[in-house]
Structure formats: C-alpha cells, structure tokens
C-alpha cells in the first residue's frame, strides 16, 4: 500500500479527526506566561503547543549585527526533545534554521523596525508538543507575543496551512494528513489587510486546487486573526 492509498477522508467529506474540509483545529491563546519576558504567549492549536517569549527592543550585541537604520529581529525556533514521539536531538538543525529564517522574514514585514535603529528584538519560539503545522503555530504565536510586548506592528501575522489528501483540498492538516497527504501549502496572512507575508509549498497542486487551498487559508486566517485580537484584548482566548 502506497502513501496515496491511505484513506483519510470518507465519502461524506469527514476527515480522520471528525472535521470537515474547511474546519480548523481548536485554538487557545494565553498571554503573559513567561513573567520575565517583555511579552509572551502560549498557543495550543489542536495537539500542537508552543510557547513564545519576546525580549526587547534592546541593545544589539555583538555590535557587528547592528543595523544603523532599523532593528534586527532575532528569531529562534526550537522543538523540545520531547515534543514528538521520536526524541529530537537538542540544538539547532537545518530545519529549525530554515523555519527561524522564514518566520523572521514574515514578521519583518509587519514590525516597525525602523523605529528602533541599532537595537535587537529577540523572539524565542519553543515547540512543546508537535502535531503538524508547528511553523504556522509558531509564527502566529510569535506575532501575538510581539503585540503583547508592545512592539509597534502594522498588523498581526496569522499562518495557516491547507493541503491535499486523497485528491481533496482540506484546511489545517493534522499529523497523518501531513505525513500521508499529497501537498501542503502554509501561508502567513495579515488578517486586517489580507496581504501575504509568507508562502511555502510542498507537493503538487493544480491551479484550481491551489486557488481552493488559498481560499481556505484566507478564510481561516481571518477567523484566527479575530481570535488573536480577542486574546490581546481580554488576556487570552479559549475555543
């Protein structure tokens, strides 16, 4: 039996975890979970759990990393060794380096870095429990934690991934769908303006399927953007 033969959606369009094609996993957001940090957030998204702490803006060290016209965003994405069933070797690896880079690039488009020349904003993303889509959860939680720290931003960034399983486009893939699915399209969306700050694609999608995945992501981002705004106003959100 090949990967494509694993049945993950039934004839009624119900997925393995009982969701319909456009449904997003339950989300909860808690703020101020790291008291020593300037801003912090714990986000659970399905079984995913992530803690983000933001420090700064602060003097950038070493001096060679300073930019004379703007602040630098130092993002570190890390998965805890116990976050998956296979133990992850602690420390930076190729994958975490790549995700740190794309997360930093996605956040740079919304944070008003030019207000703090020569300084640094440190964003630490720690994945506590991983179940597909950790880069999306990490990016969304990082934007909420930055807002919690009082860093000026033009918008939040909400990241969602849609993909294809058994030839059907679905929103917010879970672990089995991510592992055995045919394609994955994570996007970082600015919920208030509808602009895009990050897009990656893994696998093949036709033009129509891409459009469908795009629409699912946009729709979900607007909803999750509302949850994030509500969490910031009320000190947390629990769906």
């Amino acid at each position: 039996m090949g990967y494509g033969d694993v049945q993950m959606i039934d004839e009624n369009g119900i997925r393995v975890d009982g969701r319909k094609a456009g449904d997003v996993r339950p989300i909860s957001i808690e703020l101020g979970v790291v008291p020593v940090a300037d801003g912090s957030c714990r986000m659970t998204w399905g079984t995913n759990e992530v803690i983000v702490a933001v420090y700064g803006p602060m003097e950038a060290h070493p001096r060679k990393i300073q930019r004379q016209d703007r602040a630098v965003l130092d993002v570190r994405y890390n998965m805890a060794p116990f976050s998956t069933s296979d133990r992850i070797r602690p420390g930076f690896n190729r994958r975490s380096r790549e995700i740190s880079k794309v997360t930093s690039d996605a956040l740079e488009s919304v944070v008003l870095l030019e207000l703090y020349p020569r300084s640094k904003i440190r964003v630490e993303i720690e994945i506590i429990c991983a179940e597909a889509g950790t880069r999306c959860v990490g990016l969304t939680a990082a934007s909420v934690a930055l807002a919690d720290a009082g860093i000026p931003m033009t918008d939040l960034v909400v990241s969602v991934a849609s993909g294809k399983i058994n030839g059907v486009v679905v929103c917010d893939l879970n672990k089995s769908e991510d592992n055995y699915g045919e394609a994955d399209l994570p996007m970082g969306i600015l919920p208030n303006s509808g602009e895009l700050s990050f897009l990656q694609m893994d696998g093949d999608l036709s033009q129509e399927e891409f459009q469908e995945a795009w629409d699912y992501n946009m729709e979900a981002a607007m909803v999750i953007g509302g949850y994030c705004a509500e969490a910031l106003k009320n000190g947390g959100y629990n769906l």
Partner: protein
Amino acid sequence: MKGWSVARLDNMSEKGNAAGPHDSQQAPLLVAPGEDLGDSEGYEVGHGVIVMDGRLRATKQGQMKKDGKSVSILPSRTKYFPRPGDLVIGLVEGCTNNIWFVDIGAPFNAILPMSLGPAKMEFGGTRSVIDIGEAILCRVQEVEETHSSVVTMKGMGLRKIRSGTVEDIDPHLLGRLIGRQGKALRQLKEDTECRVVAAENGRIWIDGDFEGMLEVRTRLRKMTAEAKAATPGGVA
C-alpha cells in the same frame, strides 16, 4: 467569525456614540495591532497610530483615545523610551578610557562621558570611579535623533548606588506607585521607613533596614499583581 468590538471613528458619529470613546460613558475601547480605526481625513495621528492608504491603523495593543482631532493608543505595555530630564537608574555595562556605557532599560544603551561623571578623574580612570556592574542614579541629558542618549551625574542627588537594592517594575505602573501628588509613595516611605526612589525607567531604589526593604518589595509585587488583574487585556 466570532465578533469583537471594533473601534472605528466612522462608527462613532455625533448621533451614534457621542464624541467617541474618550468622552463616552462606555468602557474604554481596546484595540489590537493592525485594527482599522477609520478614515484619516481630518484626524491627527498620535502615539501608536499610523495612516495607511488614507485609513487610521493601530500599531499597538491598548486603549484607543480620542482627544479633539487627535487619535492615539494608550498601550497596555511599552518599553521605556528616554526623554531629556528623566531621572533614571542605570547599570554600568562597560567603559572605555573616558566613557561609561549605561543600560537604562531602553532599546539603546546610554553613554556617560567622563566630563559628566560624579568626580574629577584622570583619563583612563573611569573604572576606578564606577566599575562595571554597578548601579547609578543619573539623569538623561540628551536624546539624539539616532536615539543615542547621554546621561549625566552632575546634579542634586545624583550618585552611585552603594547600598540597598534595585527593583524593577513596568514603567507604565509608576503612576500607580507614586499616586496622586506623590501620596502613595510618601505613604509607602512612612510605613516602611525606607528611602524609595522611583526612577522613570521603572527601576526603584530601596534603601533602609532589611525588614523595611522586604516590605517594599512585597508591596511592589502585590501592586503589579493587582494591576495585572485589573487591566483589560490582562497585561501588567
């Protein structure tokens, strides 16, 4: 989408919502970064607000304030930003032959030139007067356009901190600590018989006997916890 209150100036017509959130009897309108606050036509932009494509946008999380034609955000949490004349407590992070580099809790370190130091000294004698890691009570003299700031120790009461302890609170809670016309701070000093100096950057110098210092620390932590519980948005 789950609904939440959106602060829009164009939702607040004279008929509908009096003259906006600031003057109305309603609870303060909370905004999140990126939230659309309405048309920018005829409005001045204040702290935490920018104009994008002719629309006002919040850049910070906090309460929206409308004062006449000026719209601003009172942020729930913000980093200390130095202004000339501020009394601050700095921690010396490094020095050269004639300059100290001082961490004042701002996004950028301040410099304390030898000429503005606490005493006369020889070139190269900076470290013998204030060593790395020591705390100083100083005043912001100048903030340049590039955000570099200069602090001075020339002035009444400015000195090296040799005794007591330094506690940190969020700078936006200083008003709560000091109280109306300094009443709360005066009461705290009387109750604990301690010297309490509240600097603008949220650092508090506490000096006195051990029991008194402990009492001040306990009260500061209690105040922070109370502020957190009372603030909409849960941030304090």
